[in-house]
């Protein structure tokens, strides 16, 4: 196989050739995954749209799918990446956009290889949908910042090495203007992680208490007071990530429930049949909508349907699981286990019906409530006028709480 000339045009055939060349040097069957990924990062095949030297080649973003597919074709699809979702999906693009060269150098490679895990310290008990109202204080002392406050709904905090964190550095200006964005060492003194038990009995998330935690100013991302703008980059990358592969029909919970229906004639009633058919139709419509969005993204025409996809997903999961429980009747009155535990990557659809029902309640809260998503669609997509706001120009410290 010929080596790839470095001045080749960055199109799909060229990238396929680069992957082939890479695989000829690093056999996925025999190379340790972390080493393989490190080499892939160095070869610019991690995120092809990132700059050379930082995991990419400066290629068009749309070509990433080609590269991933090509690696998959050669039998390499990295595993155990679930825990990297915040690092890969949110921290990386933010560090790329706002990080200093030193920061990009320090964080991106171990983030990509999985050597370091990331979590996100944004939400607070008093600042959920209204994230900009958050109150965790960061006070500058010399070349460090001292942080105090409480964060919630933090997944992976109990495993993470690093966190992206938003804190208030100036309470005397309006809320969006007094925020600063930091990278926080989760092993630093004063960082206390406590499991946050949820209604399923499990604790997927954590509360994180910050007591006089010192963060060096070199771990500030973006300028002081620019935190809100930096966070927008993070959050834009949070909404439903659309995978590279089309989702099959009856993927997800609708498949689980329809299979139960097929295998359990004893559960069938005409009324439930009609309900199931209605849900099946809606699930299929949602699936096709997601597929259309995937095609739009692949064609470089991103649409606003991402918010819609998340909204529809939450509603469907909740309704399907509600019908599932009632369909099961007496069996639906039981639950597998209420014992407190910390789950590790157990597939949602493989859990019991009670868990489907309870866990799906979070789908319309986590990662942007359905109410916030509707506001976004109404104002940004449909262009409907905003509501009168009273909180945008007041100093944060004077806001009602």
């Amino acid at each position, binding site marked *: 196989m010929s080596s790839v000339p470095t001045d080749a045009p960055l199109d799909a055939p060229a990238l396929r050739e680069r992957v082939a060349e890479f695989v000829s040097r690093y056999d996925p069957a025999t190379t340790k995954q972390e080493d393989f990924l490190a080499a892939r990062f160095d070869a610019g095949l991690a995120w092809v749209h990132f700059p050379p030297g930082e995991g990419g080649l400066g290629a068009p973003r749309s070509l990433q799918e080609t590269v991933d597919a090509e690696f998959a074709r050669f039998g390499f699809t990295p595993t155990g990446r679930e825990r990297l979702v915040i690092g890969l999906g949110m921290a990386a693009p933010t560090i790329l956009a706002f990080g200093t060269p030193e920061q990009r150098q320090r964080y991106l490679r171990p983030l990509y290889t999985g050597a370091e895990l990331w979590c996100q310290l944004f939400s607070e008990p008093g600042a959920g949908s*209204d994230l900009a109202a958050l109150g965790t204080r960061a006070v500058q002392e010399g070349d460090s910042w001292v942080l105090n406050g409480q964060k919630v709904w933090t997944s992976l905090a109990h495993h993470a090495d690093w966190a992206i964190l938003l804190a208030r550095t100036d309470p005397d200006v309006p809320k969006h203007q007094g925020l600063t964005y930091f990278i926080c060492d989760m092993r630093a003194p004063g960082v206390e992680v406590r499991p*946050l038990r*949820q209604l399923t009995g499990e604790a997927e998330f954590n509360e994180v208490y910050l007591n006089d935690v010192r963060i060096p100013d070199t771990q500030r991302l973006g300028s002081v007071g620019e935190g809100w703008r930096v966070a927008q980059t993070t959050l834009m990358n949070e909404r439903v990530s659309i995978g590279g592969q089309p989702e099959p029909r009856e993927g997800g919970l609708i498949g689980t429930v329809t299979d139960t229906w097929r295998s359990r004639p004893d559960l069938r009633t005409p*009324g439930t049949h009609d309900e199931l058919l209605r849900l099946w139709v809606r699930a299929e419509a949602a699936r096709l909508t997601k597929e259309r969005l995937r095609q739009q993204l692949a064609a470089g025409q991103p649409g606003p349907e991402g918010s819609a996809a998340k909204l529809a997903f939450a509603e469907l999961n909740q309704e399907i699981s509600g019908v599932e429980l009632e369909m099961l009747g007496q069996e639906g009155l039981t639950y597998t286990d209420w014992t407190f535990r910390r789950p590790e990557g157990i597939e949602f659809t493989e859990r019991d019906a009670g868990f489907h029902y309870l866990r799906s309640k979070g789908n319309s809260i986590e990662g942007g409530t359905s109410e916030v998503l*509707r506001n976004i669609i109404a104002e940004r997509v449909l262009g409907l006028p905003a509501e009168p706001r009273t909180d945008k120009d007041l100093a944060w410290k004077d806001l009602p709480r």
Partner: protein
Amino acid sequence: MSETTPDLLYTDVEEELRSSVRALLADKSPVSAVLGRVDEGGAAVVDSALWQELAGLGTTGLPLDEELGGSGATFREAAVVAEELGRGLAPVPYLGSAVMVTSALMSLGRDEAALLEALATGGSVAALAVGLATAPDAPFPTSVRAAADGTLSGTVEGVADAIAADRLLVPASGPEGPALCLVDAAETRRSAVVSLDMTRPLTDVDVSGASGRLVASGQRADTALRAALVNGCALLSAEQLGIAEWALETTVDYVGTRTQFGRPVGSFQALKHRLADLWVGVSQARAVVRNAADAVAAESSEVELNASLAQSFVSDVAVRATEEAVQLHGGIGFTWEHPLHLYLKRAKSDAIALGTPDRHRRVLSRLADIPS
């Protein structure tokens, strides 16, 4: 259609009863205490001390004549108690003992006066040994067999209130068909089930080897069991109303104080409209529940229809109320530490208990002549 117009209001006596029960629960069983109990699990969830207090208030024998240790009232008053027990999520065997077994035994006249009196006064607790999802139009259960000498064999899965009971009323298949047998709970093997509804723990009951005393057989047994289940449906809907009311009020309070974007979130119109719609649903549920309770009390010929109407309507309202409550509480409503999830689990389980709304619509199809 209906014989007489039902009385859909609450009488002064009923409102007084409500106040006493509410005050008792606030004092002895605040929801924070219930939340603590569920972490214990199994039999520890049931609050026997509270049950004795409720008996002391006369709430456990409302529909019984005074000479039977009752209050000489009706199931209308009992429905008000059920509303309050739902509202407070009180972990007591009201549905099983004071409603279902009491209804079955009442349909037998004076035959079981002694046990009725024991149930009314708190001297005994009984449960109806059927799976909690059993609908009133289900065929008479056959999972338990009664031999000619009264020896029972078989298992009943997912029985409510059995964990706290000393007596079980067991529908069984006897030598001459349907049979209702009373057994001493201590003679049975009861294994706790992990229940979706943490405040009404279910039990699998193996009655094999227990000696049952036959209290009714044939048509009489069937009638008694139907009475238990139909009255159970009517009173369960009252419990569901209490749950829905708690969820609505708690949510209205929360959104009135929770501030986001510089305003109470309850001032946002989308939330206001959803809560207004929910209030409409709860108001309608109240009328439907009163109607069903009145039909039970009046021994209306349409009691079955009105009980199924209540189960098919109020189940959905209670589920929606608790689901909306979780959503509108945001993150906190998703946590274990807030009691909302106990109401959500109860509401969803209640929707399945004694037949799903779908099942009750099929009953209505028959009773209201809306053929498939």
